[in-house]
């Protein structure tokens, strides 16, 4: 199966079981949301999937390749990309440079920028980065250092980097946190557009309106246990989910 497969994943920190035998698939061209109350194990799962943590048991498959023990950079080279709950930008670099670095794996040759003209050498990547910046309406900020951007604009730099990377599987950890409702809506539209490119998207999010509007599948975690999975309609009416989570967020 292409996309992302999580198989019987368990993880504990000390005596606390953070994930317990969690299994689900994230299919290409589909948007799967992972929801649950704080401390449910969502971010731990994202960290294990992207290789920042190792699970105690279980397997991670990426486009039919077992990547369970693979370091993060190798998973990225195989097409896995992610964004972070807290902004993780390349400070000291411009928006354009951040965007181009997203496609690091496609970069070749000695110099990225021409030392004399300062133009980015890789024309294809340069064009992809330009298009990505346009898609997220930050092309006018291309030459600004990311440190000088306001939160809203800075929040769009990570998605731009993702677009330049051209992933097959994308994990997004709370991308709507801190966004206004209109910005969150735009983000949702952008994510739906990404699914048309056959990208498998795993969205970790607390904004239930956004999740219910754009998801194809929803997986619910509570105290490290997978308590439900299904379509938004099924999840909305699932009593276990209402008791554990939706009851609070509504």
């Amino acid at each position, binding site marked *: 199966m292409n996309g992302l497969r999580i198989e019987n994943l368990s993880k504990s920190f000390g005596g606390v079981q953070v994930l317990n035998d969690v299994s689900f698939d994230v299919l290409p061209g589909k948007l799967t949301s992972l929801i649950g109350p704080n401390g449910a194990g969502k971010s731990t799962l994202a960290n294990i999937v992207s290789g920042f943590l190792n699970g105690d048991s279980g397997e991670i498959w990426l486009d039919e390749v077992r990547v369970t023990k693979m370091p993060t*950079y190798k998973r990225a080279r195989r097409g896995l990309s*992610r964004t972070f709950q807290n902004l993780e930008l390349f400070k000291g670099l411009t928006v354009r440079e951040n965007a181009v670095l997203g496609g690091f794996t496609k970069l*070749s040759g000695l110099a990225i920028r021409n030392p004399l003209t300062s133009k980015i050498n890789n024309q294809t990547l340069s064009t992809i980065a330009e298009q990505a910046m346009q898609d997220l309406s930050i092309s006018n900020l291309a030459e600004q250092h990311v440190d000088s951007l306001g939160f809203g604009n800075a929040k769009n730099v990570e998605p731009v980097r993702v677009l330049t990377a051209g992933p097959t599987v994308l994990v997004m950890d709370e991308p709507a946190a801190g966004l206004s409702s209109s910005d969150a809506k735009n983000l949702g539209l952008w994510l739906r557009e990404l699914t048309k490119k056959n990208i498998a998207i795993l969205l970790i999010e607390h904004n239930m309106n956004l999740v219910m509007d754009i998801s194809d599948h929803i997986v619910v975690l509570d105290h490290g246990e997978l308590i439900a999975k299904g379509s938004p309609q099924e999840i909305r009416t699932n009593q276990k989910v209402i008791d554990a989570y939706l009851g609070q967020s509504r």
Partner: protein
Amino acid sequence: MLCAILTLLPQLINNIYEIGLLTDFAITLILLIGLNIISGYGGQLSLGQVTFYGLGAYVAVLQTSKLHIPTGFGLIIAPLICAIFAAIIGIPSLRLRGLYFAMSTLGVSVVFTEFVANSPRISGGENGLTVTNQLQIFGHMFFDPKSIYYLCVLFVFISYLITYFYIRSRWGWSLRAAEASEPSAAVVGINIFYIRLGAFMLSGAIAGLAGSLEAYHQLYITPEGFSFAYSILLFVALTIGGLGTASGPVIGAFILYAFKRWFGPFVAFEPLAVGLTFILCLRYFPKGIDPVIRSLFSSLTLRIRKKKLDSSSSTSLEGAQ
């Protein structure tokens, strides 16, 4: 421009002592250029730069005295050996982070000094080694202070050129990206360990080059000249200049040169003066002097532009009237 100034300076100075100090400045500058790669652009606090500096000096001397290799080859062999030694140290220590990495490099520096001081058969022990063969490159003898000085200036230029292209290469970008955000760097496919190891090796090679030049400049080397205290002094000087900036090493080397010149007769006061400058710098310019100079320069150019604009608009208004 810096190299042009450095090349012209000996025309104005005929004092051998002053030429010697300028040579010290050029060698310190090469050392700081190397340190700036791993600690400035790479963000890894390396306190072992003096190890490579010392190793480079000893390799340059020993390759001729023990193996009878022509002196000129020392300027190639010393950096190569230092790069290999940096890899040997870097493979375990670059897996550590922050202060732990700094402590491991500091430890290597202490061990190196002790080893050199206690191995009289190889290194001459505490008494050091005297350089008996003059440096010779393509038949040209570098025996007078001015010729050694010009050679050091040439290597300042080469070191800057290497750094310039390295920082603009995919490795340099990766290094800066990893410094800015390790998680993001990993997520875009950068092998952080490998990139930092490369930077550490390059940094060590440049320090080794500085060491070999130091040996032919002083014609006498002792373990005392490569103590870990000097490593800390170098890091402080670079921080005052501006970590990860092009002019940071120049400012840092200039500060060490100026203090050496002013406090020449009072050597004991030199570290005290550098320490006080460091404290003041951390208080008022925490990012070093480079950004201050840059902002002063940009505000000055802005003022000049504004003045030009004002004067041209007033002339055009007068013309219209």
